[in-house]
């Protein structure tokens, strides 16, 4: 699972075990997000989420991962407009 536009090196090292409640990254304006906001293509700070099935032994996105999958199949928790989890959807 990849997250785009995070603060550099704010994520755990490759191979880390992630537990519920762990911080897995800090939102930033990295990549082209700052330019996109300045230019008006988007008004919101956001993160891109990409999920791929691992098909190789390493961490190279070009060699060890397959085609992108639908992130919604893996992120089952839904949130209401206030940002609170909707009961019964928690993963």
């Amino acid at each position, binding site marked *: 699972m*990849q997250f*785009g536009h995070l603060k550099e090196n704010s994520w755990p090292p490759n191979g880390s075990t992630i537990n519920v409640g762990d911080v897995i990254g800090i939102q930033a304006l990295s990549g082209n997000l*700052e*330019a996109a*906001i300045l*230019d008006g293509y988007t008004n919101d700070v956001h993160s891109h989420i990409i999920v791929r099935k691992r098909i190789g032994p390493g961490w190279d996105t070009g060699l060890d991962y397959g085609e992108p999958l639908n992130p919604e199949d893996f992120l089952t928790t839904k949130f209401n407009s206030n940002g609170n989890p909707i009961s019964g959807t928690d993963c």
Partner: protein
Amino acid sequence: MVANIVLLTADLYAQDKTGNSSIDNPVQTQPNGRNLISCSAFDAITYNGHTISQINATGGIQSSVQSLWGSYTTVNENDTSPERLFMFDEAKVAFNTETGRLTTIEISNYHWPVVILGKEIKVGDQFNKLKQEFGSNIKIIYKPAISDRYVVSFNCSGNDYDGLLIYFNPASHEVDEIKYYKIP
């Protein structure tokens, strides 16, 4: 009497902390927004001598990129995203390795000029030069919550989510970065 007039003139051209002649602050004087040009003119913009279509034609292949701009300092594959990043002394150029298309050019040195509508702009140019080249009503974008630098944006309507931003140092009013970017 003559001496008094000379002194008065000198006062009008007071020096700021950087030694440059004082100029109006574009954040306060310029209209806000993007500067739209025709898409053919936008596509004709050159980055150190080459258009976006010429750069895309390299496919991000090392030998082809080198044939455009000469030897790069390093090239790296990003292990967390499909990106190949070429580092030159004066600029960074990134390609998406899945599409082979350009995603970013970041120019930080005056040796890499861009040519817009036949006008050459480079890092270190004063904002007043852009006013002279593109008109006194050239628009700027200033969003202090996002960046402390103001930018001049060139774009064309109906393009495919890319743009050219010229970043200005808010103290010296000099170009300190030129960036082409494309949204995936």
